[in-house]
């Protein structure tokens, strides 16, 4: 194809998206669209998968059967989310093996929030309430993104997220209304997860690359700062309702803006964690790669068994 032909196709392609048409796997697409989508969708899939690790830490120690079945179901959902997203990413012509490889070698990123430790049971509450809460804010706009398989996967994901957040808030509420010690646990978890949750919505608009292109492709519909503001405005009253304090002395309602003003985010910490120096980066990768490698013999055995069964069937036919 000549340069001019490609330019032409690109113009038509952008116009289709502007008309709110969906792009499907076999449609022509610019290389940059394919690459950007592989990067964002796989990063999203990796986050769901690695995101299981901090929570699975507490499954066996959940304080009641009710809490245990809820947490188990939530973690299982996250595995499902990862799988929906991996298979949607594979429609762009990259193999699952390659995607896993990118995660396991550190070539691909996952959400940096999962590099924080889960040290008390209250962290299960804070994660559901805040981390899944922030994830929902990020994910809802993606239900109408331009790439069909991604949009469809996100619709399913969003339907399932709501319970994640509610079970987390319920945990926090129960603790906050409990003994002094339990309330302290809840407050301590909020103190530790609040700022990382704000960072989870991405760098400030001034520092955020790719934004304009992503807006055009509907990979993004609102800027990071707008999403963050939305998250803060919705979460602060929820904290007040259960008697917990947001750990930000500068947090104040701004009547004029109809929003909360908030304190400075420590972006230095964010970039440190992104670069691999968070409290649990190494542990998460060790657990993930370990699970993959230790499962190898199982995958091989299943494949060998399937082939043997197939051979036997073919012999019978003859």
């Amino acid at each position: 194809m000549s340069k001019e032909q490609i330019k032409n196709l690109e113009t038509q392609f952008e116009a289709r998206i502007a008309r709110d048409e969906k792009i499907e796997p076999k449609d022509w697409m610019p290389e940059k669209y394919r690459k950007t989508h592989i990067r964002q969708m796989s990063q999203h899939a990796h986050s769901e998968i690695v995101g299981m690790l901090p929570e699975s830490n507490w499954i066996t120690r959940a304080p009641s059967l009710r809490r245990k079945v809820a947490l188990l179901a939530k973690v299982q959902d996250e595995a499902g989310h990862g799988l929906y997203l991996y298979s949607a990413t594979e429609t762009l012509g990259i193999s699952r093996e390659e995607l896993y490889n990118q995660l396991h070698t550190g070539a691909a990123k996952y959400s940096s929030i999962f590099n924080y430790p889960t040290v008390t049971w209250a962290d299960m509450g804070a994660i559901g309430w805040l981390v899944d809460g922030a994830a929902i804010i990020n994910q809802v706009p993606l239900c109408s993104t331009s790439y069909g398989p991604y949009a469809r996967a996100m619709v399913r994901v969003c339907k399932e997220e709501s319970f994640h957040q509610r079970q987390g808030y319920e945990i926090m509420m129960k603790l906050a209304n409990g003994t002094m010690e339990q309330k302290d646990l809840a407050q301590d978890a909020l103190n530790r997860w609040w700022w990382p949750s704000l960072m989870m919505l991405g760098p400030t608009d001034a520092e955020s690359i790719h934004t304009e292109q992503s807006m055009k492709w509907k990979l993004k519909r609102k800027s990071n700062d707008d999403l963050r503001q939305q998250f803060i405005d919705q979460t602060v009253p929820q904290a007040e309702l259960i008697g917990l304090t947001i750990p930000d002395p500068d947090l104040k309602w701004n009547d004029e803006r109809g929003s909360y003003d908030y304190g400075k985010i420590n972006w230095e910490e964010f970039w440190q964690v992104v670069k691999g120096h968070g409290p649990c980066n190494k542990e998460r990768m060790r657990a993930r790669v370990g699970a993959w490698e230790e499962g190898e013999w199982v995958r091989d055995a299943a494949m060998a068994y399937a082939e043997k069964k197939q051979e036997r069937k073919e012999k019978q036919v003859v």
Partner: protein
Amino acid sequence: MSKKNWPIWEIFVRSKNGLEHRHFGSLHAADAEMALENARDVYTRRNEGVSIWVIESKHITASNPDNNGELFEPAQDKVYRHPTFYDLPDEVKHM
């Protein structure tokens, strides 16, 4: 390194009797039986289905969007295939 990767399967789910099976997504599995079991866990954790079909992706033949013109455009000018093409007197009701 694993010797062989599990192939990819396309998953179709009938959400309730009376409706057709609809494409839900795909997954990897060693064989059809495992694909069914995995599909149950991945795509129907909340009663989304009453029946599942799985087919290994390589067995699907798909049309190429580049040929959409020759495939689908011929239907565009065949307006006589639609009821509104035919002129009937207003007195004729229910036809």
